[in-house]
């Protein structure tokens, strides 16, 4: 939600420039540009020496805060700083004072990423990694390894040395050098016993209502993702139940055997309550993941953390923006809300490296020993959810759209953690909620898999196939750094070409493409 350029040990007299929509110091060496959006606000506080700029999500029911810096006593300034981090929605704080490092603190929600980099005198920050491309020095073996084996870790480390992520509630200190300070771990709890009279569905609905009501949603300017899945389905139907006929919907269409099921089940979900007539759909088989001319293939500086399905997702977002929407509501976080633990349901963790990923280079394999080092402490929101928010936000923000993710609301997360096994198993909470709306077994007990797996298969075996040949012919920073083994990649491609296609073993080649394209664009 912010872009910034901060120069410590320079002038710290800030003013708000209404014309350009940014805060700037008198000497012009520091600037803060809040993301302009009706769901956000910003304000500045100073005690004549110290300055605090707050960029944050607006809460429902309040007028927009005045952006012009206001002067407080030192005691009131201290109180304001203490209060600022109790804001229940997302925020970024920027603190400056003469003669000391600048500080930038991220809020707890992770809705938009904040990447930072620096040169000898200045700290730069943005939600769009492309803005920091000139600071990308080389690839980080450990982080590249994590992504290649699909075992990501939420941390301040990015694939590019020189570009850092300010994780949730972390503070970046810059003055001389950059230090990103992690916060205390957020605590989590486990299942509890339900009372005999417990109305779980009622509590779920109340929690969704609170999550939706927390922010000032404008129905006419809001579109709900409605994929046919249970998470977006429960949130969107509840919103439409409360405000019939107001909300438009959107989705990407999948390929494969699940496509007919997606179309049919989505139609039933839309008919169960009253949505607006507009239903914005992009067919991911027509707008392919790595279609020629897409931004990634064209050398665009798209961070590898952005949407794997970047091209169709960008196209869908453009339709949403053309519709006039400024806000998108998603179902992200729904899986994590009701997940079973390893103790409840022993299952293979993601990213168990196997001989099937023949292309992992020696330097990447060696780095995996340290994959869990220096990662962020537990957050209020599950770390995989935070990473999924990060894939989504830049595409949306470029289109002028702010995302809302009700399943990441603290009370939703807490409710999910407390529910007993039988309410979480196979997402019974969401299934029973949809059944309570009158939706039948075709929606709530479908046996047909709906997945982007076939879209990815198509991308790898058709659109991307020539890209692999080009990489092997022309080279890649990933080869030079020992992170991908070209002979191993050739083995992997022979397997891909000979078939049969394997979702465990072939699909992971997509990350090779995304990392290569990002490395080529940024370095």
């Amino acid at each position, binding site marked *: 939600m912010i872009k910034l350029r901060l120069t410590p040990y320079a002038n710290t007299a800030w003013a708000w420039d209404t014309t350009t929509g940014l805060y700037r110091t008198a000497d012009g060496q520091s600037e803060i540009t809040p993301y302009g959006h009706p769901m956000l606000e910003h304000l500045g506080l100073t005690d004549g020496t110290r300055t605090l700029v707050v960029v944050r999500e607006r809460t429902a029911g309040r007028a927009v805060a005045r952006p012009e810096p206001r002067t407080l006593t030192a005691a009131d300034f201290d109180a304001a700083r203490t209060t600022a981090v109790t804001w229940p929605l997302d925020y970024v704080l920027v603190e400056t004072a003469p003669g000391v490092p600048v500080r930038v603190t991220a809020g707890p929600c992770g809705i938009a990423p904040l990447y930072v980099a620096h040169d000898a005198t200045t700290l730069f920050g943005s939600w769009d990694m492309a803005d920091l491309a000139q600071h990308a020095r080389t690839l980080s073996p450990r982080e590249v390894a994590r992504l290649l084996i699909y075992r990501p870790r*939420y941390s301040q480390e990015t694939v590019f040395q020189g570009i850092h992520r300010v994780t949730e509630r972390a503070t970046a200190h810059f003055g001389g050098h950059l230090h990103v300070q992690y916060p205390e771990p957020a605590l989590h709890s486990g299942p509890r016993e339900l009372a005999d009279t417990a109305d779980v569905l009622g509590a779920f609905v109340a929690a969704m209502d609170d999550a939706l009501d927390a922010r000032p949603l404008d129905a006419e300017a809001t579109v709900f993702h409605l994929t046919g899945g249970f998470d977006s389905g429960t949130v969107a139907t509840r919103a439409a139940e409360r405000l019939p006929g107001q909300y438009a919907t959107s989705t990407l269409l999948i390929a494969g055997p699940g496509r007919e099921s997606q179309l049919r089940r989505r139609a039933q979900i839309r008919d169960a309550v009253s949505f607006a007539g507009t239903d914005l759909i992009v067919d991911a088989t027509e707008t392919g993941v790595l279609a020629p001319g897409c931004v990634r293939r064209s050398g665009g500086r798209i961070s590898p953390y952005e949407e794997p399905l970047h091209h169709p997702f960008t196209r869908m977002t453009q339709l949403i923006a053309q519709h006039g929407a400024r806000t998108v509501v998603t179902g992200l976080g729904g899986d994590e809300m009701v997940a079973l633990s390893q103790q409840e349901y022993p299952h293979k963790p993601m990213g168990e490296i196997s001989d099937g990923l023949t292309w992992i280079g020696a330097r990447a394999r060696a780095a995996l020993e340290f994959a869990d080092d220096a990662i962020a402490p537990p957050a209020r929101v599950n770390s995989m959810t935070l990473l999924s928010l990060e894939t989504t936000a830049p595409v949306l923000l470029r289109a002028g759209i702010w995302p809302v993710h009700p399943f990441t609301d603290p009370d939703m997360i807490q409710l999910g953690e407390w529910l007993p096994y039988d309410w979480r198993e196979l997402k019974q909470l969401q299934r029973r909620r949809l059944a309570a709306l009158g939706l039948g077994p075709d929606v709530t007990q479908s046996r047909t898999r709906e997945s982007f797996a076939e879209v990815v298969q198509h991308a790898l075996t058709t659109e991307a196939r020539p890209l692999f040949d080009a990489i092997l012919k022309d080279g890649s920073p990933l080869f030079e750094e020992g992170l991908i083994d070209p002979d191993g990649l050739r083995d992997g491609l022979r397997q891909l070409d000979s078939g049969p296609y394997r979702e465990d073993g072939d699909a992971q080649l997509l990350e090779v493409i995304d990392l290569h394209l990002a490395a080529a664009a940024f370095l």
Partner: protein
Amino acid sequence: MDDLMPPAKRSTPAERLFTTKANRRVQTPGECHEYKKTSGSSDGAKTYDTTAT
């Protein structure tokens, strides 16, 4: 200074559902980062979302 103050904290109606206490603890890295999709999805099978395909 009123706009600096957060809104009134919501009550937690979910608390009334339960008869046992909540024990709060620190999660392991595996717990924080476990990818949940395979533990149950719309169709009870492995369904990919956009963070891992």
